[in-house]
């Protein structure tokens, strides 16, 4: 009834209109007077009646001097931005009404929280005496994990359709511009209990929020808790990934795999099961920036791509950008995967571990000094080697093989006070692979960083990081007559400073980042006296990549959230270096090599500068749906050179130089996002278009290792990708699921002045990861409080391959003739994986808890083709075979524990 009256009054204000009373001029100073006091005094002096609810009007005071102005002008100014409005009726009365929309939404939110049995915290910010209703003020907050005391990065804070929402930054801090008055805040983060706050804001202020883990672990499917994030976050294409969800998905030989989970997202694909890395929206593997605590990683996998190089328990959160990449990131054209490690617990020591079929892991974290200094350390290592050697096989070579990997993480945090925190992070991954007893491959990636997070004031905060990275591989052969060691190494120290400044509804970000690369692209040396290997040392390469950026996130009006930014990037390559000189206006090929120029130490051999605009806007159509538009331009100065089907850890990273221009990637995306039934279901549709310039490809038959004239074996061209991504999920109930479908194309054009400098005659051709139709469905069915049945089905169009059009016999060899790169496709890929998750009891306080994940991959044993190969057993006959990596159903079991 009250609601009906409010609505009636409000709607009537749109039709009834009279000016006479409101035109009355005010004759004296009224500054500092309470509005109710003023109105009652005005009634006594004039033939006018004011109709209002005391509680609505009493908080308002008249702050300005309105002498000589009209009554209507003064009231409009005092009630500006509030939900109170007024109308004049019958030339003698003024009725004050309140817009019920926000109040109704607030009540609904509270009722919904009660229905879901959510605990509602009542928080009052500021003092009632300072309450100035309707004024926009800034709510500054910090969200912390209750157990670990670690900041929750990427948590969403939603204040209803009118005020929208925001997310926490890397320090777990958020700022929200809202009116004073009553609000309901909903705070969400994947894997943590949703928090509901009944907030009364009297003035600008701050609050600290603690979030608890969901008592039922691993409740969500990977993306399906992203509704709030997707709809309230201004960045199109940003996804927050769940470590919890990752652990409960079916796994390959028991290893929870971040990269495999990424590949279930719309717009992300891979060339096959044994391929390292991933492809995002038609970009190549090297176009993904993978950051671990702010430092880039060059290798993201173990065992040549079978397992990802991240121990899931050591990860605090992962943010994935596949479009609308913010200005603070640069250097890779397609995506950013920002991984933050888990810090230690501030109050007590905790641990967890896992035992799988091929690896085991352990993590401990706790306080070195209570509430001040913490440590987290973890290690994961394989016993695949033992497994292989224990195989009851008669193949000596297999038993003499070696497959080893480990990764280790260490993190130290020290809080000087509430405003300063120093963190040290170390990461190392190592792989060793030896087969057939002679040749061993080893590769490792190490990162160390020191980071200071400093809050200078309520408005200004920043982080400063000093880091050192190292990526290297070795190929060794121990057969005495040819024994050698081939080494490759990249060392990259980095410095960066990122600042945030909050001014009203603007959140400015700015910073400077610089990274120095020292490439040792190859050194071959004999390792025995009788070795026939001749030492070869490739010239080292030095480069400096820098970027400065500025960005702003602001809300012009309640429906828009705009993020704009620009990044200025530069890349310098420096001596000592020898630069080859080719005949002008001729193809860059060996016959045209005429000279070389030697540059001394520090001499600039090439330089590049790039201006990279970034833009993302969200427009809320209503509280259930929004539109998002984004654009980014990114220059990429490092190129991964590979001439194999899949990227391998022993491929070469090549900096841009005189011959290799930086890649440029421009991407625009537009999406419609919507949820249904109080976020029980959500859906989005997003289209994107991407153009890439100067993508590198190799000439036919190129030899890339220890090649001193690499430029003569590589070509540059253009690429483009476009597509539409559709996604729908059900997020609540015993059965949750997510379904995505992507149609996209990824095309390349390599057109040079001569046929030798073109691929496929300069015509457009599909990239080797062009998979037009991609479909993914995942689900999680809670059989009981402790048992869940999860699964995933994926389908992808077969990727393009190059096949022979005929064969021939030459000098006794039967050879296939290939024409046209990537003109044929392997059969479509599809696979079903299921898992049974058995959790321990759900008591919050327990000394030990364990869970089992029993997985079955490739349930119906489909032999998905990974590649084709060709062979001839007798001259005159060419056979075609397909290699399937998973040729049968693969069961596995993992036990994880926490203490």
């Amino acid at each position, binding site marked *: 009834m009250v609601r009906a009256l409010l609505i009636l009054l409000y709607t009537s204000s749109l039709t009834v209109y009279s000016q006479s009373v409101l035109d009355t001029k005010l004759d004296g100073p009224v500054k500092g007077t309470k509005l109710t006091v003023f109105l009652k005094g005005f009634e006594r002096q004039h033939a006018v009646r004011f109709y209002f609810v005391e509680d609505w009007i009493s908080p308002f005071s008249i702050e300005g001097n309105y002498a000589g102005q009209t009554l209507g002008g003064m009231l409009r100014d005092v009630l500006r931005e509030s939900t109170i409005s007024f109308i004049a009726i019958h030339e003698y009365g003024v009725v004050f009404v309140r817009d019920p929309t926000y109040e109704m939404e607030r009540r609904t939110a509270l009722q919904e929280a009660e229905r879901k049995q959510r605990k509602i915290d009542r928080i009052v910010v500021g003092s009632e005496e300072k309450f100035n209703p309707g004024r926009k003020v800034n709510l500054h907050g910090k969200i912390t994990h209750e157990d670990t005391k670690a900041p929750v990065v990427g948590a969403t804070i939603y204040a209803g359709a009118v005020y929208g929402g925001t997310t926490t930054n890397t320090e777990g801090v958020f700022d929200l511009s809202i009116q004073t008055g009553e609000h309901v805040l909903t705070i969400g983060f994947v894997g943590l209990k949703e928090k509901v706050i009944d907030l009364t804001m009297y003035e600008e202020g701050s609050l600290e929020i603690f979030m608890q883990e969901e008592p039922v672990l691993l409740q969500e499917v990977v993306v399906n808790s992203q509704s709030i994030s997707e709809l309230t976050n201004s960045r199109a294409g940003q996804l927050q990934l769940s470590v919890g969800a990752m652990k409960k998905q079916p796994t390959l030989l028991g290893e929870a795999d971040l990269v495999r989970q990424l590949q279930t997202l719309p717009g992300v694909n891979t060339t096959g099961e044994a391929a390292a890395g991933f492809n995002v929206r038609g970009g190549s593997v090297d176009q993904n920036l993978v950051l671990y605590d702010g430092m880039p990683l060059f290798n993201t996998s173990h065992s040549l791509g079978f397992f990802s190089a991240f121990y899931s328990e050591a990860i605090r959160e992962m943010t994935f950008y596949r479009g609308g990449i913010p200005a603070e990131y640069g250097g890779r054209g397609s995506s950013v995967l920002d991984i933050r490690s888990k810090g230690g617990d501030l109050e007590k020591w905790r641990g967890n571990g896992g035992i799988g079929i091929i690896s085991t892991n352990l993590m401990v974290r706790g306080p070195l000094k209570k509430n001040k200094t913490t440590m987290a350390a973890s290690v994961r290592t394989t016993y695949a080697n033992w497994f292989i050697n224990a195989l009851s096989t008669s193949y000596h070579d297999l038993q003499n093989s070696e497959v080893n990997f480990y990764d280790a993480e260490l993190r130290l945090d020290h809080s000087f006070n509430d405003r300063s925190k120093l963190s040290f992070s170390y990461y190392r991954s190592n792989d060793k692979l030896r*087969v057939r007893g002679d040749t061993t491959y080893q590769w490792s990636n190490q990162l160390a960083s020191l980071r200071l997070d400093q809050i200078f004031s309520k408005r200004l905060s920043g982080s400063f990081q000093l880091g050192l990275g190292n990526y290297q591989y070795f190929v060794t052969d121990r057969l005495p007559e040819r024994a050698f060691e081939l080494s490759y190494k990249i060392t990259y120290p980095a410095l960066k400073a990122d600042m945030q400044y909050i001014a009203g509804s603007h959140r400015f970000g700015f910073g400077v980042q610089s990274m120095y690369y020292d490439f040792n692209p190859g050194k071959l040396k004999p390792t025995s006296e009788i070795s*026939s290997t001749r030492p070869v040392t490739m010239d080292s390469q030095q480069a400096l990549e820098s970027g400065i950026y500025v960005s702003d996130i602001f809300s012009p009006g309640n429906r828009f959230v705009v993020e704009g930014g620009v990044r200025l990037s530069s890349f310098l390559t420096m001596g000592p270096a020898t630069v080859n000189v080719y005949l002008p206006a001729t193809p860059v090929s060996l016959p045209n090599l005429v000279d070389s120029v030697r540059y001394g130490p520090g001499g600039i051999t090439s330089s590049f500068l790039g201006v990279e605009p970034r833009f993302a806007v969200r427009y809320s159509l209503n509280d259930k749906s929004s539109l998002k538009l984004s654009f980014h331009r990114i220059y990429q100065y490092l190129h991964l050179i590979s001439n*194999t089907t899949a990227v391998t850890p022993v491929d070469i990273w090549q900096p841009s130089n005189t011959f290799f221009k930086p890649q440029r990637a421009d991407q625009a995306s537009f999406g419609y996002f919507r949820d249904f039934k109080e976020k029980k279901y959500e859906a989005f549709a997003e289209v994107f278009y991407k153009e890439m310039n100067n993508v590198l490809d190799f000439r036919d038959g190129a030899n890339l290792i220890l090649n001193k004239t690499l430029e003569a074996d590589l070509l540059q061209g253009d690429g483009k990708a476009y597509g539409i991504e559709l996604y729908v999920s059900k997020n609540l109930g015993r059965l949750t699921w997510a379904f995505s479908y992507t149609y996209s194309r990824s095309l390349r054009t390599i057109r040079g002045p001569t046929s030798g400098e073109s691929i496929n005659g300069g015509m457009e051709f599909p990239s080797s990861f062009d998979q037009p139709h991609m479909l993914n469905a995942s689900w999680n069915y809670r059989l009981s409080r402790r048992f869940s049945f999860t699964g995933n089905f994926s389908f992808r169009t077969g990727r393009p391959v190059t096949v022979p059009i005929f*064969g021939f016999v030459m000098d006794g060899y039967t050879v296939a003739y290939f024409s046209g790169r990537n003109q044929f496709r392997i059969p479509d890929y599809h696979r079903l994986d299921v898992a049974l998750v058995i959790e321990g009891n759900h008591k919050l306080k327990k000394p030990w808890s364990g869970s089992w994940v029993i997985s079955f991959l490739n349930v119906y044993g489909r032999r998905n083709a990974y590649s084709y190969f*060709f062979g001839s057993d007798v001259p005159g006959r060419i056979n075609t075979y397909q290699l399937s990596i998973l040729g049968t159903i693969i069961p596995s079991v993992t036990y994880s524990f926490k203490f």
Partner: protein
Amino acid sequence: MNFLMKQIQFWKRRGRKVANRGLTVIVLLWMSCIDPVDLSLPPSQLPLIIDGAIADGDGPFSVRILRGVPVDGRYHQTEFVAGARVVISDNTGVRDTLKDIGGIYETNSIKGIVGRTYQLRVTTADGAKYESTPEMMLPAGTVDSVFFEFVRGLKKDTQIEVDGFNIFINATAPAGGNRRLRWKFNGTYKVRTNPALLTTTDPITLQDVPLACAEQCLCCVCWVSVKEESPILFQNDFLGSSTLRHVFVNYIPINNMTFNERYRVEISQMEVSQRVYDFYSGVRKQIDGSTSLFQPPFFELKGNVSATNNDNLVIGVFSAAAVVKRHIYIARTAIPYDFHLSEIIGDCRAVAPNSSNSQPAFWQ
């Protein structure tokens, strides 16, 4: 699974081609599969293949002209192209029009002399003309020694693979800078079978009778010819300047056939031009890379023969290279254990592919 076994055998035979196949082996044994597929490609016009070479000496040397074969997993008889006019000339004005022996063309008189430049010209019956780039005949260097080392293979009781010998050479490349050597492995072994123990049904009497060739032992002794599986090439960037030591050239498995008596190994060494080297390097990449997990994308092979008055696709290689050879015999006694032979039943020509019952002239 049968394919898997074949695959493993295939890798084993290539003992030293290591690279990244290792994981494939492991993965294959764990969970992967290899299946034949039918690409069902649309039929295409099969192009002309020209395969010719001239070495030092008097010859005769031959040029083969044939057609390509479809990629359909079926055997296709080599289709030679007869009726062409084939001429080899050198830079001193010597020309030789080759005689046509059903698509295989043989030289009459032209000699191969180091330092001279040779060129091949072909005119097919329909008037289409093709020619090679001029190829200078380069000296071959020397094969200083051929030797072998016993290597343990798979367990003998698996019946899949046995132990073997790795064959190495010490060689000297021609003096000077950039060298592009190619070696050919020519293996020959003698096989003695017992065809009399194999019977066939007489179509008239319907009686089981011994093989006809068994009576005079026409098919009880054969010589089997083996060559390398992919071109063996020398890469100047990785090895010493002119003297090459312990260069691996091939692997010989030890079994009932290969060491039935003894094994003759002949190594030929030559230096080829850049274009010919690139072609065979591509062939090697294709053959070696075809089974790799990290398969290099395949590419078009380009020889040194091109069409001059038409747009027909032709793949041709004409090489001019002096050749030096060296051979050894490996006796069964070189096997470091007592190797027992079992009797082989049947026609030796059928039992051993690439075999002949006439003794090669070089066999001692």
